[in-house]
């Protein structure tokens, strides 16, 4: 399969692993963060970390859009879903994220009309098919899904679909990276940059990482060889004393991003002053809301949204996992009270969450180590 097989070639993988081994200084410990949940998933699925020398550590970043949604936001969504006459739509994994009084899936079981959609355009279609119902789309995700929501809202406005609205929980990638870099308990040597977010924003927004923080970043694809090559490129930068943004994923990512996507996002959204991230707290200018021009489609203005802040469960250490301070298996409830079937924390919900990825793939390797 083109674009896939050649990036999973075991022979090339071994060559890259040998090059990485040759590039590391034996006495030095390297800590790289893969920003994106898609990378975390691939790393565990293909055992990429097994190919790395022991002194190269991968830290999982905050780039899983489900994992960063705070409990209060889930509660707000459920409150809207329970309003009479509402059809509430969201992406599949979002339905399993626990709020303080249960998940959307549980609210659905209790009678709320909550439906899974693959794309916001599906939600708009449901609205057109049910003109006597209010259809709300719960929008989550980074800059990869924000254009899709923006286009849908443009369509809804142009076509005049009065019963459609959007509860916007979109977030942007740069502010949490800056927050992580400012965090004193995390010392990183470099970043594997998010691939698909960069198809939209380009690689340029990451220039602050080498410029302001002196760390290299390599935007990477999601196949195992992409990730290995990105690590090889970061090591080469460190070795040669360079510090810059490099683009390993140039077959998909233009350095300047997708201008049309950025324009439609700028038209439909504006930055919130603050947005709460699970485990990371409030980060200024990190979340998106609907702009003035689209206020009529804003579910938060159309419905009464409680907006109550809910603290994460004490036992759950998603925050530390999202910041890369602890590994998934170091959380007290990992694999016992918290599993993909009954998640306590968001990182166990989405297949791109570090805990779920590790639970599904990585724990077997660790069991081998322990034995």
């Amino acid at each position: 399969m083109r674009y896939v097989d050649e990036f999973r070639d075991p022979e090339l993988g071994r060559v890259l692993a040998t090059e990485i081994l040759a590039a590391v200084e034996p006495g030095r410990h390297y800590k790289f963060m893969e920003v994106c949940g898609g990378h975390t998933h691939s790393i565990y699925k293909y055992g990429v970390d097994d190919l790395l020398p022991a002194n190269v550590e991968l830290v999982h970043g905050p780039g899983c859009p489900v994992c960063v949604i705070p409990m209060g936001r889930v509660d707000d969504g459920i409150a809207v879903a329970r309003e009479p006459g509402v059809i509430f739509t969201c992406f599949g994994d979002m339905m399993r994220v626990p709020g303080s009084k249960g998940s959307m899936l549980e609210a659905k079981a209790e009678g709320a009309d909550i439906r899974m959609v693959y794309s916001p355009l599906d939600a708009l279609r449901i609205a057109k098919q049910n003109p006597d119902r209010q259809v709300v789309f719960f929008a989550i995700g980074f800059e990869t899904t924000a254009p899709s929501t923006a286009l849908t809202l443009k369509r809804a406005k142009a076509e005049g679909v009065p019963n459609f609205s959007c509860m916007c929980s979109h977030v942007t990638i740069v502010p949490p990276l800056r927050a992580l870099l400012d965090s004193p308990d995390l010392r990183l040597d470099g970043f594997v940059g998010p691939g698909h977010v960069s198809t939209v924003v380009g690689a340029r927004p990451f220039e602050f990482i080498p410029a302001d923080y002196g760390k290299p970043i390599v935007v990477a694809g999601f196949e195992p060889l992409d990730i290995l090559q990105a690590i090889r490129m970061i090591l080469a930068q460190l070795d040669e004393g360079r510090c810059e943004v490099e683009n390993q994923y140039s077959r998909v990512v233009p350095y300047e991003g997708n201008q049309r996507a950025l324009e439609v996002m700028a038209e439909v959204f504006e930055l919130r002053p603050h947005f709460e991230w699970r485990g990371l707290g409030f980060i200024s200018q990190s979340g998106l809301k609907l702009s003035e021009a689209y206020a009529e489609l804003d579910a938060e203005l159309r419905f009464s949204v409680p907006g109550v802040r809910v603290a994460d469960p004490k036992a759950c250490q998603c925050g530390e996992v999202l910041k890369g301070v602890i590994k998934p298996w170091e959380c007290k409830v990992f694999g016992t009270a918290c599993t993909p079937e009954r998640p306590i924390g968001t990182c166990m919900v989405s297949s791109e969450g570090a805990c779920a990825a590790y639970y599904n793939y990585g724990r077997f390797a660790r069991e081998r180590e322990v034995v």
Partner: protein
Amino acid sequence: MNANACGDHCITCSDEGIPMRVERIDDVRRLALCAAEDGSRSTVEIELVDVAPGDRVLVHAGVALAELSA
């Protein structure tokens, strides 16, 4: 529900896109019929890219975000 219900792809629109080939284009509505590697077809929004039938695109949440270079 299995978090991996869609094979390799997380059904949440996390940072994973699906490479697809454009088969037919409805230029008025800026929609395209696209086929994935496994042969499954779906309608994709192509407002954000310039593509022609036969081109390959990266699709995310029903929207083509980038053209894959040949």
